[in-house]
Structure formats: C-alpha cells, structure tokens
C-alpha cells in the first residue's frame, strides 16, 4: 500500500517534469543518442560493429557523439535524413520497417521515442553543442523493490544534471533486470516478479548506471533451528535469511569441521591422530583452537604462495626460471611473515629492479603497460577492465578514459636488458623513466594518472607510488573488498560476488552489508589476512553442514550460504590427498622427492594428473583459468588409471605398511577411513568392510580395494 501511494506521488512528478522537458529543444547528445542505444541500434551486432552494417556505422553504444552525428546527418550525402519530408527520413523508416531493414522493426509511429526523433528532425537536427546539459547522476525510484511472486511495479528512472535540472528518462534510458528468472523489466519500466530470489534492476543512461535491488522472498523463513550467532557474519546472514525467507541447516560434525579447515586453509588432509585428538578434546573452544593451529601450519605458506602464484601468473615461460623462483620465494616470505596485504600489493605494483633478484618485479615481466593495467585492475581491484581498452564498458560507468588513465600510472616504466648474469644471462631491469605519457586512443589527449572511480593522484618521482598509497588508504575499501570477497570464496566455495574477480555496481554481492563489514574489519586489522580467515572460519555460517535445509533447496546455487557448498578439491589438493592416503609421493622434475604439488613454484612441471584435474597454465589474470569442472578423463583416471593403481599398490605404501605391521583388521579399516575421508567409520561400515575383506584373496588386496573405493567417493574428492 505504501508503495502504491509513493507511486501515485511519482506519477504526479512525472507529469510536471515531462511538461518541462517537452518545452526543451531535443538534444542530440541527451535525447537522440540514448534512444539509439536503448533500441540497440549501436550495439556490437548492429551498426556498432567495427564496420557498421549496411554502410551505416555508429560508435559502439554511442560513445562518440561527433562521429555518430556525422554518420547520421552528413555522411553519404545526407541521405539518411529527408530535408523536405522529415518523417520519411531513412533514420525513421528503416527502424519502422517501412523500407527493408535487416535489423527488423525497432520502432513504431505511436511510440514516444518516434515522437522525440521526429521532433529533433523538425527542429533542424542540431548536433552536439557545448550547451548540452552534463549528466550528474541517474536515480531509480523506488530505491529498492520488495515484491511477491507475480506482483508488478513501475520503475521511475530520473536523470539529474549538473545544472540542477531533473527529468524522467524511462523513454530514453535502457532499463533491464539483471536476472530475468527472478524479475522481468520492460524497456518502459514495468517490472514483474517472475520468480523468487534477488536481483537488481539496472538503468543505463549516457554512460552512467544506477541499480536498485529487487527481492522476491522465497517464502516464509522456517526459523533458525539451533543456529547460534558467533560473530557479526552470522548476524548479517540471519538478517538476510529472514528477508529472503530461507533457513540455515544444522551445524557440521567435528570431523567435517576439521577436514574442512584443513582443506580450505592448507589444502592438506588432517592426520589420523589429529582427528582422534580433536574428537577426544572436550574443550568447548576446541574449534577456535583448531583454527589457530591450522593457520600456523607450515603448509599455509605452501598453499597461499601457490594460490598467489596463480593470481600473479608466476611461470617460467614469461619470467624464466630465475624470475619464477625469485617471485616464488618472495611469496613464501610474505606468507610466512603474514605480511599485511596492502603492503604486499604495494610492493608488487611499485617494484623496480631485476626480476631475477627482486621477486615482485616479476609482475612486470608479463607484457607491457596494458597487461600491467589489466592485471592490476583484475587481481587487486577485482575489476575486469579489458573491455574499456577499446570501448565504454557495456554496463558500467567505466570509460576508455578510465582505462587509459589507470594505464598512465605505468607510462613511465621501462625495461632494459642487463649483463649481470652474463651476456646470455637474459636478465633485464625494471626502471622508472623521466618522461612518458598516455594519450586517449581516440582523441589523443594526454591523460593524467587517475585511479578507477576516484580523484587523480600523482607522485613526482614514481607515479605508481601514488597508486599504491591510494590503494592502501584507510578510507579506500577497494582492495579490502576485493580481498574479502576472494577469501570468502576460497573458504566457502563461492564468492559473495560471482564471478569473484568481477566486482561492479551491476553485479552486487549476495550480502552487500557483509562485504562492507568484512572489508572494514580487514582494514581495521591492518590488512591481516589471517585475521580475516579466522573471523570467517569462526562464524557459524562457515561451520554449517554440507547437507542443505530442505526449505532452502530453492536457493540452488547457495547464494545465501544456508549450508556449506561442497567443492571438488583442486588438482594439486587432490594429488597431495591421494599421495597422503596411499602413503606415496609424486616426483617432480628437478625437485627433491617429497615435494608436494601445492608447494610447486609454477605449473610447468609435466604431470598428467594435474593437467587432467584442471590446473591453470597461468597465462591469464582470471580466477576462471583454473578449472574445477569434473570430466570424463578425471573419472577414468581415478577409476581405472594405472597411476592411481600404482600408488594404491605401492610396495612401501600405506596399505603395505599396515599389512607389514600386522595391523588388526578393524584398526586397519579405521586408519584407511581416517586417511581418506578424515572420519571414523561407522559400526555398520566396519562390519561391511570386514565381511568384504574376509572374502579377499589376501588382506593386502582387500585393503587396497577398500582404499580404492574410498578414493572414488565424492566424500573424498570434495571439500564438504
């Protein structure tokens, strides 16, 4: 009811505003261009294509007013506009399909947009002028939609200009729902709740974008059960579940918890004795203690150096072996010392000198200015910037100017070769030049260095120092938000924002308040990443069971973390876990025996297992380069592969040891369960296994078969 009253009020406002707007002459920039964008005329598949369509070329999504004006009004002898019969102009008759148009019918004579275009022609088709109003912001009313399934609502989009003028822009802005299975929006701004869940409404106008959240609750929350709030993370999820009508599942068992924190933080299965000790511990705070213990394990350094080696594309192909080891060792030192992450990032983006001697300088071994710009944006800011290299971001308020202004931070960085390691040593040095600028690729205008979405900052000696200072500023949450989202995903299987390196206004977090709180917490604790991990793991949300609450099954993707998302172990985790369970070790070229897969410095160690299970090549900035997708080859490798079978039957392997030591059968079964699925077998399982083993030709074969079976269960292969 409140919504309706509000709408009535808005309708009155629109009435007055549109009368004001009607009196204004039509502006090419503020009226005509947005309509061409709204109707898709200048999209990539149509006239926005590299060579246009049918001889008519517009700039992609209308970022170049002057060129587009010329294309419409002047080019091909002005044939697109009929000076005497304005309404017979090709500009109108083509989209009306009154003459053939490969793009089909886009416009009708009774549409208000037709009215606007015709009026513009009647007013003499004026071009862009300096007097065109400058847009300040786009506003959506209401600011949030809470709807029931099937309910309808009207969106009012308004533009606010720098001179204070405001107008409704439904007829010329592009209005979309980001997820049509939840809610659908028509281009006129009529919104219908078509499903359940949350999404955002997006309004784009003149390169600016505004979003408004839409919530269509899944139903009534069935309460919290035995859920206990442990910290602020739980508070914020409870609020979210109540709003969306979801319920959390039960807490996970001690064994699941211990296995989960081991795999998530050190990619290593817990040792059988650790499981037993943890189960026997009666301290009510034993989970907190276990978290602290696992964060201090040496494997923490291995695993996170490997993880960041992925993100920083550490590989010998572009850095040579010396550079690769140098960066790897720097990563290890950083994680060993739990270096504050803002300092970690600053050291990378301001690195100079020889990549062979200064690890972080290898960031600049990969490519040149554009690669560095894109890597900085994607890895440290969580923004995919690549598209803005050539055109305005399709949805976001990110322009080519933004891209090349960020690039300007690296404009003075040079590489020169050095003979430090001999003439053939291949060493080079990263150094700062005295000059060097970046021009806008279209206008050629020199661009000042400016971070994304912020005021320009510069440094007289090395521009990058200003960028690093901006990133680690206590009032700037960009880096912290990116890290908080990534680490949430690393620990819980999916990010608050997905994909995890695609943070933008039109892709909001499933719990924005939580992302804010986590990043604030990280900044307040001086970018101590272990603090962030500890806080997340201490929350009850992290400790929920992997079996979902039946009432929350509607949230199939587990966007709201009502249970723990089972995630397949990564390639390296899996290989190590298989070796751990079999009591064997993989031998990698040039490395000593016992060197674990999660400790490798790059991915150029030939290994079929790791390739089949999708380790990344470390060629691109994206997290998505690592594939966690199960495949047929993986299943074959685990079921009938010789490699796995050799490990299981290894003469010095774990089964062989159990047999040699004459381990009692029940104890042997228990050990194999603990080594694979990190839990005690149930009485039923022991009995079943015993009866199978009694039929085996030798105890060794029987135990091998049991081990094989457990390695092929999803309980082993998934972190759950």
């Amino acid at each position, binding site marked *: 009811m409140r919504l309706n009253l509000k709408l009535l009020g808005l309708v009155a406002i629109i009435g007055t505003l549109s009368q004001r707007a009607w009196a204004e002459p039509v502006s090419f920039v503020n009226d005509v261009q947005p309509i061409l964008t709204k109707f898709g005329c200048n999209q990539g*598949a149509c006239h926005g294509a590299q060579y246009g369509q049918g001889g008519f070329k517009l700039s992609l999504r209308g970022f170049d007013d002057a060129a587009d004006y010329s294309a419409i009004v002047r080019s091909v002898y002005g044939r697109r506009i009929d000076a005497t019969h304005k309404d017979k102009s090709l500009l109108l008759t083509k989209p009306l399909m009154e003459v053939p148009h490969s793009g089909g019918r886009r416009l009708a004579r009774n549409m208000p947009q037709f009215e606007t275009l015709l009026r513009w022609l009647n007013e003499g088709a004026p071009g862009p002028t300096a007097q065109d109003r400058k847009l300040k912001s786009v506003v959506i009313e209401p600011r949030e939609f809470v709807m029931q399934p099937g309910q309808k609502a009207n969106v009012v989009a308004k533009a606010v200009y720098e001179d204070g003028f405001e107008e409704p822009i439904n007829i010329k802005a592009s209005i979309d729902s980001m997820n049509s299975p939840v809610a659908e929006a028509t281009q006129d701004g009529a919104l219908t709740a078509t499903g359940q869940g949350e999404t955002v409404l997006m309004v784009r106008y003149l390169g600016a974008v505004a979003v408004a959240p839409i919530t269509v609750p899944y139903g009534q929350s069935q309460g919290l059960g035995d859920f206990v709030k442990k910290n602020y993370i739980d508070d914020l999820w409870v609020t979210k579940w109540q709003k969306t009508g979801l319920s959390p599942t039960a807490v996970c068992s001690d064994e699941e918890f211990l296995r989960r924190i081991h795999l998530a933080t050190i990619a290593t299965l817990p040792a059988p004795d650790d499981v037993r000790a943890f189960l026997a511990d009666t301290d009510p705070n034993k989970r907190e203690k276990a978290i602290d213990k696992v964060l201090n394990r040496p494997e923490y350094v291995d695993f996170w150096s490997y993880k960041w080696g992925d993100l920083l594309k550490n590989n010998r*192909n572009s850095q040579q072996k010396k550079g690769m080891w140098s960066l790897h060792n720097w990563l290890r030192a950083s994680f060993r010392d739990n270096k504050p992450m803002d300092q970690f990032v600053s050291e990378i983006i301001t690195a100079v000198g020889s990549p062979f001697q200064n690890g972080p300088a290898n960031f600049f071994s990969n490519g040149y200015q554009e690669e560095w710009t894109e890597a900085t944006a994607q890895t440290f800011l969580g923004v*995919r910037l*690549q598209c803005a290299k050539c055109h305005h971001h399709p949805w976001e308020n990110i322009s080519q100017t933004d891209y090349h202004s960020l690039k300007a931070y690296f404009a003075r960085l040079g590489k020169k070769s050095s003979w430090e390691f001999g003439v053939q040593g291949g060493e080079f040095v990263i150094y700062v030049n005295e000059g060097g600028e970046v021009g806008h690729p279209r206008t050629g205008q020199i661009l000042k260095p400016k971070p994304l979405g912020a005021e320009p900052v510069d440094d007289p000696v090395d521009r990058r120092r200003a960028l690093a200072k901006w990133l680690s500023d206590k009032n700037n949450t960009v880096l912290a938000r990116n890290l908080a989202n990534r680490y949430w995903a690393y620990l819980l299987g999916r990010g608050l924002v997905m994909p995890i390196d695609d943070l933008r206004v039109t892709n909001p977090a499933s719990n924005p308040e939580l992302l804010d709180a986590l990043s604030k917490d990280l900044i307040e604790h001086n970018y101590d990443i272990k603090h962030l991990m500890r806080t997340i793991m201490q929350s009850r949300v992290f400790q929920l069971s*992997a*079996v979902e609450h039946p009432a929350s099954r509607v949230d*199939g*993707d*587990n966007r709201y973390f009502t*249970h723990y*998302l*089972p*995630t*397949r172990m990564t390639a390296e985790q899996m290989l190590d876990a298989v070796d751990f369970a079999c009591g064997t070790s993989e031998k990698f070229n040039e490395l000593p025996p016992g060197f674990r897969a999660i400790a490798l410095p790059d991915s150029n160690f030939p290994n079929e297992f790791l390739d089949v299970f*999708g380790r990344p090549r470390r*060629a*691109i900035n*994206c997290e*998505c*380069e690592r*594939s*966690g*997708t*199960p*495949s*047929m*080859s*993986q*299943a*074959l*490798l*685990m*079921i*009938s*592969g*010789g490699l796995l*079978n*050799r490990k299981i039957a290894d003469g010095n392997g774990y089964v062989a040891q159990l047999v040699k030591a004459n381990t009692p059968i029940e104890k042997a079964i228990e050990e194999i369960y603990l080594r694979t*699925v990190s839990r005690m077998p149930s009485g*039923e*399982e022991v009995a*079943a296994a015993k009866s*199978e083993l009694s*039929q*085996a*030709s030798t105890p060794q*074969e*029987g135990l091998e*078969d*049991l081990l*094989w*079976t*457990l390695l*092929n*269960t*999803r*309980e082993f*292969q*998934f972190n*759950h």
Partner: protein
Amino acid sequence: MLQFFNHDRSLCDGLTRRDWLRVGSISLGGLSLPQLLQRRAQATEATLPVKAKSVIVLFNSGGVPQHESLDPKPDGPKETRGIFGAIPTRTPGTFIGELLPRTALLTDKMAIIRTMVTGDNAHSTSGYQMLTGIPHIPLHRENAGPGKPNDWPSLNAYVQALRPPRGGLPASVSLPRRMANNNGQDPWPGTDAGFLGRKFDPWFLTCDPSEANFQAPGSELPKDLSTTRMNGRLSLLGEFGRQINELEQTASVQSYDRYQQQAINLIAGGHARKAFDIGNEPDSVRDRYGRTKQGQSVLLARRLVEAGVSLVQVNWSSIDKNKPNSGGWDTHEQHNDSVKGWLLPVMDQVYSALIEDLDQRGLLDETLVCWVAEFGHTPKFNARAGRDHWGRTFCIALAGGGIKGGVVHGTTDRNASDPLGDVVRPSDYLATVFQCLGFAPETMVYDVENRPIPISRGHAVTSVLG
C-alpha cells in the same frame, strides 16, 4: 579374489543388474539441474536447419599435394605438373589424379574446393588457421605452440561447446594422436579449446584401433589389475558410495557423479564401450578400410559417430615411420615415390571406404565428411625430388550431410599455384561446416570470462551447400 555378491557370476559382463542399479543410484536425479544446463542452453540452440548430425574430419597433417590429388594439371608445364596423370570421374568434366581411382567413382557425392588459401607455409601455424579459422600471429612460424594471442578455440572445441554429449560419450573426439611437430613433442596451437577453457577440450585419444585387442582408451585396466578385481571394486563402490554421506546435489557434485557413471559404463561394457568394440565389425568391412592404423581409426570414427559423437577428427597416422618423410604427407623428398607408394593409395582406400560405408548405412545424408590438410605442396620440385609447403592454394573435399555432390568450387592457374578467384579461407570452410551443423557464423559461445565469441568470422561457401 574379491567377490562380494555371488561367486558364480560371469566375469566379462561385470555386474549383475541389481549391482548396477546401486552404482547407478550414485547419479540418479543428477541430470535435471537447470543451472547445469543454463549456460549450455545459451549456445546449443541450432538456429538453422540441421543438415549434418555429425562431422568426421580427416586431417592429413603434412599437406595433401594438390597436383596429384584433387587438382591435377595434365596440361601444365612439365616442371610443375608431376609424373602422374588425371582420370575422369563420375562427374562429367571433372578430373582428379590417377592415384585416386576409387575416389573418382564418388565425386557425385563430393564437393571439391580447389581454392583453399591460408597464405601460411608453416605446418603449425597454417594448421592453426585450418583448425580455428583465425590466422596465426605471426604467419609462417614453424614449431609454434599454444599461447596468447594464438589461443583461439578449434572446431572441436566449438562443437564441444555447442553440442551436448550423447550416449555417454563426449561431443567431440580427436584421435588417434594429437597433431604436433617433432614426433609429438610440440603440439600445434589450435588443437584444443584455447580460451574457451579446458572443459571444452575435445577428448584426445591416443590409440591404435588396428591393434588386435583394441579397447576404449583409458578403460584398459592396469596390467596388475584383473577384470575380476575391477568388477569387485565397482561393486564395492556401488555399495559404499551410497552409504557415505548424502552430499547435497550441487551442480558440481552432479556432474562428478555423471562422469563417474560414464566412466564406469565405458569400463564395464555400456553403450559407450561397445562403440569401441571395433572387433565386432565384419572382417570384410575392416578389410575395406584397410588394416592400417589410419584405416581402422577412420572406421572407429564411423562407429563413434553412430554412437552419438558429434565430431570426430582423425589426424593422419603414418603407415611406417621408416619410410621417406617418416611416412607422412610432408614430402620434402621422394615425393613421387611417397604419394604413389603409401600416401594416396591408403587415402583413396580409406576415404572411399568411409563414403561408401556411410552411404550404405544411410548415414551419409546426416554425416559431413571433411578431407582437409593444413596446406598443399609447391608446384616446383626441390633438389631432393620433393615438393615443399604451399599455403597459397590447395584442395579440400567435403561430402555428405548438407553438401551438394558433383561440385567443384574454384579454379587455379595452370601450375595449381594460385587461385583464379573464388578464394575460400579457413574461416569460410569452418563457417560451411557450422552451417551444415545448423549454426550461423554469428552464433555466440562464451569464453571462461563469459565474453561472447562468434563461432566464425567467415561466410559459408554457398555453392557447395545442398
């Protein structure tokens, strides 16, 4: 010996029906998740009539000599025309090389393109262009490897992304070896999914279907593991896999279960494994293809297509590594002996066998057969009586689903060295293949970063389309 259920069960058939239901229960209910299909569905909709349900690509890496195969120049100058003559074909007015007598009887089903141009004279980079439709940067780079910016997806990968897997087999298979320079050391760029991501890689099979006891690759058991024991293990997995922790059905768990099920099917004798039972083919059919690795690989391709695979690429497999030029098509020396001795006769036999076999089974109308290579050979002979690399013009042949027979597209000059108009680029050839599969070139697939990529930037060669 582990025998968990009943001791008298037959060994080769694997599990009893009851046990299979158990194993199967790991994955039941796993196939309907909308999320799993959502991404796929964006791309799998064919927008054009589907003329070819499946494609077999015969890729003769090394280069097929246009003069001796499909573009003979009997009236050309003697230093370029070679020593072999031309023979008339089933199509009046069309002549092909005399070393292809059986193929000559099938030209009514074939469209020959004589003006295929890559403009690239290196195996790996010209091959990249034929596989992806995108010229390599830079051209003429021998021993090029995969990597930026030459990471465009191959035809196999696009098909993997466009077509769902059927019959427990992946949509796209590449066999019997990967294309690579230097005896398999340096794989060509463009043989995998590139920036579409590894999950769209075709299933690479390294195998020799002409071996006596050939089995589905990857399904052979390790030597020290008996079938009995494997069956015991599978029963155990069926029994225990069910008891253990009913994990929630996420997309990832479900697809894991599905692949595990497919792998078990392959090992334990399901539909998929039967496709690999090449020994079930009558001897007459196996002999017709020839008992070579190449012949049996092509026969296997036909069986896989019948079992539901959308695209099988058969890479040329040398008859005998000890022959000149390692028995391959890269005839830098003793060209005439090579083409007459072991290249064209084998190809003539295999190609004609495939077309006839498909035709007799009524499959030719729905199966597109592409005979391609990365380039042709030089018009002039070199000092070692060989012909070298030639990307300026060469021939390919298309036949079957969606293709008009009896067509020759394009003509070349009297040396078969340059096209006289009607140039077909690799992107056009691939657009033609996509059109037969029902996909317009502007169909989008999505890379790992979810960026839309049109499957082709070429134009279908309309003159060869039926």
